């Protein structure tokens, strides 16, 4: 009770510094939140991509149905292959048409799929890291003309997002240090205003943790308010951004904020509290040495 009263009155006395601390914490945590949301969605997209990550082995045009049968079973027996699925020329053509949509159906009216496309075997691997091995082995099967591996594209996407993650991590780190520094100085003002009190407390035998408590509380309150602001801004911002982006990111699904609210809000709150208490702890330290 003593701690809370003291903490609140100190925050009021240094209103300008308090607001400055809250704003920097909020900015820092906002970036952290963006980073978290980004990371969560990248992983989510990654999952979606890797579930589609199959190899496709195209079969010689002049292979007979019996050949196709043999090829399918030979590929299926390759090490690390989880499942195989045969796609005939006709099926491939149908799929292609539906993929392009009704507007193009005119062009295909007189065509026969078997003339332009090849039959193929879709291969789903067990272990994604050994896709290349499967590719080699599939090429050795007689009657396989070519193996297409979509892994490269995924790799590129992931390395690009790694770069973005790294960049935002650095920005966050810089802001984090700034925020702790500003909190520290805010609390130092309160410590300074109460130096006499601290001195008396030391002499009558108050424990360091008791003396520290109001200052810690002050830092934690600043952390909580900053985190709350960041969480509110992020929740509205994210929902708006996802609404806009969803249009051209059709192939992938993104998380809704509701799905991520708990880990993101919890993470930001936790960080806000840690930053606040760390900043104030270091601010009082010198004054406890009497």
């Amino acid at each position: 009770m003593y701690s809370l009263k003291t903490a609140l009155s100190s925050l009021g006395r240094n209103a300008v510094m308090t607001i400055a601390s809250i704003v920097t914490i909020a900015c820092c945590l906002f970036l952290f939140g963006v980073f978290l949301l980004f990371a969560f969605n990248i992983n989510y997209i990654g999952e979606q991509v890797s579930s589609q990550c199959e190899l496709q082995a195209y079969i010689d045009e002049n292979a007979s149905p019996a050949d196709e049968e043999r090829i399918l079973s030979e590929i299926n027996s390759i090490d690390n292959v989880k499942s195989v699925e045969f796609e005939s020329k006709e099926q491939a053509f149908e799929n292609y048409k539906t993929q392009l949509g009704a507007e193009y159906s005119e062009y295909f009216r007189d065509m026969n799929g078997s003339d332009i496309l090849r039959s193929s075997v879709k291969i789903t691997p067990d272990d994604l890291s050994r896709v290349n091995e499967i590719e080699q082995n599939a090429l050795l099967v007689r009657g396989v003309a070519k193996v297409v591996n979509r892994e490269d594209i995924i790799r590129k996407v992931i390395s690009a997002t790694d770069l973005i993650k790294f960049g935002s991590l650095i920005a966050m780190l810089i802001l984090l240090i700034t925020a702790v520094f500003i909190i520290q100085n805010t609390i130092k003002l309160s410590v300074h205003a109460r130096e006499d009190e601290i001195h008396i407390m030391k002499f009558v035998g108050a424990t360091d943790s008791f003396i520290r408590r109001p200052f810690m509380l002050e830092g934690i309150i600043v952390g909580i308010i900053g985190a709350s602001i960041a969480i509110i801004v992020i929740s509205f911002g994210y929902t708006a951004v996802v609404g806009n982006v969803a249009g051209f990111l059709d192939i992938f699904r993104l998380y809704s904020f509701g799905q991520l609210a708990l880990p993101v809000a919890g993470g930001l709150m936790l960080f806000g509290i840690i930053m606040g208490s760390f900043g104030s702890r270091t601010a009082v330290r010198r004054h406890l040495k009497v």
Partner: protein
Amino acid sequence: MIEFRSVTVIYDNDIVGLENVSFNIEEGEFVFLVGKTGAGKSSAIKLLTGELKPYAGDVIVNGITVNTLKNRKLPYLRRSVGVVFQDFRLLPNKTVYENVAFAMEVVRAKKKDIRRKVPTILSLVGLSDRAKNYPNELSGGEQQRVCIARALVNSPAIVIADEPTGNLDVETADEIMKLLMDINKMGTTIVMVTHSEKIVNDAHKRVIQLESGVVVRDEKEGGYNLDVLA
């Protein structure tokens, strides 16, 4: 109650504060520490609260060896040693009552105990009718009484006072001395640093005299005269 065993204090700049000082103070004693400026009196006092650590020797207070005490445990030692300051160090934005109650609040005393104990102590130091006043509304003597009340309120076994009458006129100093003697009669051990010849000579109490960090006189019912060595 208090024991100095061959205590030596050396400051950062190699200045010797105390050199091989030994003495023993029994429970309930009243002891004056006298000596010229720079003799080491304040150093001796600061050792008792753990504010200063000896370079060599042991300082034992209330059965606790202060110099080996962990910092974490220091607060509990300080609750058994009340400190009276020459410059009072009252909190200006708190009333007399609040200043005294503060000392109990910060060691987490129960509210009920605070409400019972503070008025008792204020009446002991003769300030019952000043409880609601702020320090700047009090005379020097009254402020020192508040400081004494604050030192006493957690019932310490020992009270240490570094020149408690240094800022007071002779008459007021006598009143404060009378108060300290009364407190001593109730069983509290008191160690007091003073430069007042009159106070020491009137009191007929034990006198420990320091000179350049060394004990040069330790006399039961001694006088002040710094040139006459026992």
